């Protein structure tokens, strides 16, 4: 389902925690059917932005339209249409994969069949295993499965591959690609530039609560001036999105 109206429309969004400004007037438009990446160092305001879009946080000011609806007036409808994976949710360890998904499925008016979702995330062998016995990658795939069981139009993934081994990461990439191939929209945050480069149609680089660069990964790589990049030698021909990122946000470490 490809519509012309944007899947996500954010204008002049602001949010502060006490004196700390997390989001400082952020504008963002995600088109329906695209995979959109939000990149940025720790504390840049990615998670805050995404949680406001998910209706989990109230903004201080600004407007957010998700699938053309606003949280104030259509909150419950929106919950039915979104799939959400949060950064550090720990699902109940004592339940099995099947039980966990059935609970999540029960919340939605219309939902996908459990077996189908389990196949999608390749957890067939673990269907009746307790969540506590799953590996990190399997848990993360289950979290994505929980986000997908309600058959969402728009999927929010907040650092879905952080801490995963390369195999698990690639499995999740396949999953995201398949979801996108169905014509659905994805908004994801990540620290891995390679991931953004492979998965995302467009990316936005967020820093200090604002978007400082926006475009396709290719456009960003082509646009960058590498002259001030530190050694090894500037390498425009082999430049990656990671070079763009470091060039724009600097090399100072950011701690959470």
């Amino acid at each position: 389902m490809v519509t012309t109206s944007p899947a996500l429309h954010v204008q002049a969004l602001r949010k502060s925690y006490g004196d700390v400004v997390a989001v400082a007037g952020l504008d963002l438009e995600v088109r329906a059917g695209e995979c959109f990446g939000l990149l940025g160092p720790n504390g840049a305001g990615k998670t805050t932005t995404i949680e406001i879009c998910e209706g989990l946080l109230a903004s201080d000011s600004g407007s957010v339209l998700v699938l053309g609806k606003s949280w104030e007036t259509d909150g419950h409808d929106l919950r039915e249409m979104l799939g959400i994976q949060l950064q550090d949710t720990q699902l109940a360890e004592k339940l099995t994969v099947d039980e966990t998904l059935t609970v999540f499925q029960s919340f939605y008016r219309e939902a996908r069949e459990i077996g189908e979702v389990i196949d999608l995330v390749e957890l067939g062998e673990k269907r009746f295993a307790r969540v506590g016995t799953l590996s990190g990658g399997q848990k993360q795939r289950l979290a994505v499965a929980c986000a997908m069981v309600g058959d969402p139009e728009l999927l929010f993934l907040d650092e879905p591959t952080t801490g995963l081994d390369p195999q698990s990461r690639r499995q999740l990439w396949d999953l995201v690609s398949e979801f996108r191939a169905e014509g659905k929209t994805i908004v994801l945050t990540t620290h891995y530039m390679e991931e953004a480069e492979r998965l995302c149609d467009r990316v936005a680089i967020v820093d200090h609560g604002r978007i400082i660069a926006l475009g396709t990964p290719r456009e960003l790589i082509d646009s960058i001036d590498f002259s001030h990049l530190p050694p090894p030698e500037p390498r425009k021909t082999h430049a990656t999105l990671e070079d763009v990122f470091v060039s724009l946000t600097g090399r100072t470490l950011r701690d959470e």
Partner: protein
Amino acid sequence: MSEAVKVNVIRSPREPRALRLSRAERGFKGHPMVQLTLVRFREFIREPEAVFWTFVFPILLAAGLGIAFRQQGLEQLQVGVVIRQGADTSVVAAMRRDSTLVLKAYDDSAGALALRTGKVALLVIPGATRDRVQYVYDQGRSEAASTRLVVDRAIQLGAGRVDPVRASDTYVTENGSRYIDFLVPGLLGMNLMGSSIWSLAFAIVTARNKKLLKRLMATPMSRLQYLLSFLFSRLFFLVIEVVTLVGFGYFAFGVPLRGSLAALMLIALLGAVSFGGLGLLCASRARTVEAVSGIANFVMLPMWIFSGVFFSSSNFPEVVQPFIRLLPLTAVNDALRANMLEGASLAAVSPQLLVILVWGVGSFFAALKLFRWR
């Protein structure tokens, strides 16, 4: 480079959408209320420690206390005797004639120690002549005072006292007046309180701590159904709790069940739901299990002490009695005892039921107001 990689990652588009299941197609078992209640149920039975503390522990406690405080034919009174040099020991011979007295000989310092540590209730120090004896005891200990009376009577009789009134004793033992009869309803009340408060407090705070509550808030789940699932699962476990503990008391110790069982169940049910509200209130803000443990203990401690679980609350001064009666556990215990031991009707315990109800409704709405959903 990125374009080439993308082609590798994206597989051919999937065939048309697999079917979407509507609520009706998922049936009764797919109802969120059923699923949420099943979660509570599964999490509980898959936690062996929780099962032990809820069901086995009260039975062990009742069995232990029931045996320790069982009525023996005659109570044995422990008496220490300190015989100093030149003392007249005829009072000792007089005490020996009373079979309820158990005599132990000590020197001065050992006697003092035995008294201080509660091994004996009373020290008897015979004087130099047969018409002198000294009693050493703590006036505030009830068994010390009664031991003094028995010892004194034995010594006075031995010395030739004749009582002017001849009394005859008739002994009765009746179920319903023993300690175990008092204890079982109290344990049931305490257990209803403990399991309701702990199960809600732990489950909710753990879910909040692990960000699971926040994740659930991101679904269309109804908050009311989430909270109700705790109450529904409590009702199921409640039946098991009441049946095991009351059944154990009834079959092992003959604790009477003089009131209607339906009324007993209703009192327990109202109590469990009311304590569930308190549990919700305890869990409404806390972010860690440590914090909620402290809050729950703070809430329950006064009731363990004042609400007449192990001993009657009438031991406390008259001025605090109105406050004690307003505690929910006091109301639950009084109502359970009235039902089981006196066969009281529901109407007769309506003041207690009202107290329970007010606590339940009040704490539930306070919890809803305060609740931190993320």
